[in-house]
């Protein structure tokens, strides 16, 4: 059974339809990516899941029950905008959030210390939040969202403000949480992180779902039309290939895209081999970034055409 289910959820702000009939479900123990360009309706969708906003229509079910105050207890939420008491000390703040989620002061304190250690933030307990850097505040806020061991963890742009070392640390922690059976809903613009972490994704544009499924399945669905080439010899032939776009090119390497659906890779290889000495000819899987751009651009084109 899905841990989270959205059924035909819609939300309007005045005349703007921010979310329009969105449906998807999240399976337990998986990392689920909620993707989309700016203003697509991701944050509104998350705010409805966390019960900050109420949908105008449709249903949101968490663990088989409509979201509400009881379900909020089972959610951990890291919002995109940081929200901590600026003058409060770190430990006091974490205990406060733990208590709001139903932990006793002692349980909250123990969990906070454990998490501070895990995120290499020992010694921060007595620091005021305003004394911390953006990245450090981000870690504190992350701890506030996982302190009560939620079943569903919602992370909206969790890597904002983190340096590469802390990005890696947070990635490890997210994977550990997944290994413990937690479900993670993850919203980001950084596609390389989606590729690295997510099992399933849903792509939203203009408030509607335009693509959904497991990452593997989606990538397999898209045509493998990109070729990585390494060669020696004069490369003039690259300019004379019908139905092929040169994406990037250097003296002995190039990345090509087959625009003509009738063109087969073996035909292209034969054509290239007739003029170049081929050292490498690799058919690449499309990246999520490419799929994202292609899908959104196609929708924009369709919108213009309509």
């Amino acid at each position, binding site marked *: 059974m899905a841990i989270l289910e959205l059924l035909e959820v819609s939300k309007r702000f005045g005349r703007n339809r921010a979310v329009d009939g969105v449906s998807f479900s999240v399976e337990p123990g998986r990392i689920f990516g909620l993707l989309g360009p700016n203003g697509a309706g991701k944050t509104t969708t998350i705010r409805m899941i966390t019960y900050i906003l109420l949908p105008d229509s449709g249903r949101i079910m968490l663990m088989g029950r409509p979201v509400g105050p009881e379900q909020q207890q089972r959610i951990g939420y890291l919002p995109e905008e940081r929200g901590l*008491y600026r003058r*409060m000390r770190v430990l006091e703040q974490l205990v406060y959030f733990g*208590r709001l989620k139903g932990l006793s002061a002692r349980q909250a304190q123990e969990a906070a210390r454990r998490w501070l250690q895990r995120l290499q933030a020992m010694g921060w307990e007595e620091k005021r939040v305003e004394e911390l850097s953006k990245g450090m505040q981000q870690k504190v806020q992350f701890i506030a969202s996982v302190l009560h061991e939620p079943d569903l963890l919602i992370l909206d742009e969790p890597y904002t403000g983190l340096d590469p070392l802390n990005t890696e640390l947070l990635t490890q922690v997210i994977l550990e949480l997944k290994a413990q059976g937690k479900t993670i809903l993850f919203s980001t613009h950084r596609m390389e992180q989606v590729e690295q972490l997510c099992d399933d994704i849903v792509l939203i544009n203009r408030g509607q779902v335009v693509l959904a499924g497991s990452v593997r399945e989606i990538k397999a669905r898209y045509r493998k039309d990109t070729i990585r080439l390494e060669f020696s010899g004069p490369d003039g032939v690259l300019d004379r290939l019908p139905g092929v776009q040169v994406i990037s090119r250097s003296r002995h390497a190039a990345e090509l895209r087959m625009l003509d659906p009738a063109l087969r890779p073996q035909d292209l290889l034969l054509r290239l081999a007739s003029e170049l000495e081929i050292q490498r000819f690799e058919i690449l899987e499309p990246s999520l970034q490419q799929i994202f751009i292609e899908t959104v651009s196609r929708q924009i084109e369709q919108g213009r055409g309509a």
Partner: protein
Amino acid sequence: MWIGLLGYEVREALRGRWVWAYGAFFLLLTEGLFRFASDPARVSVGLLNVVLFIVPVVALFWALVGFYQTRDFLELILSQPVPRRWVLWTKIGSGAGTLILFFAIGILIPYLLHARGQWAALSEGLWLVGTGSLLIVIYYGIGFGLAVTREDRTRAFGIGMVFWFFTAVLYDALLLLLLLLLRDYPVERPAFVLTFFNPLDLARILLTMRLEAALLMGYTGALYERLLGGVLGQLIALGVLLLWAVGPLGWAQWRFMRRDF
């Protein structure tokens, strides 16, 4: 849990520097007035205009700044399993409550030091604090309601400023102009009713009647005395002022409960 939430909010508010500066301002002002004019009655009259002008505008802007500064934090709190009504009342309670606390301490400490045993003078101090506190609640409620309804903070501050200016300065001037234009007609009773629509007028009337500061009473204050007599006039002014305190808070709650964050 509500008390716990309020406790954290109050502690956070007490850590701010401005609320201490606000308390220190009233403490130094009241103490200074007592040193220059040893008669407590003159001190109360001296404080009257400060209470009527400074207290509302500070409360209004305190609410606006407090809301917009903690806007992101509010979103996080609303995602916790805490009823929305609690979130609202802890915000209002901690914001208006700390202002009232520091205002009351600032005024009352000098009264207790200089007017020890003088019940009449102490009661004047208490009336100043009581009426000032009501003004804090009213203007804090209006500020909070404005912040909840307006996404654009500049516009909210603008509307707040205009509202304060209207009630502090413009309303009386317009009322006087109206009375002057209609001086050949029986306008006493309509003028009396018109005072209900300005909380600052009501507070001024109430305090001038309590402080027996006839010179500051003005036309509307004199009307209250003449039409209703001292006690009934004070009761009506206080009653309408209490309604003013409930109205904006009710409006703020109504908007907060329905707002899309």
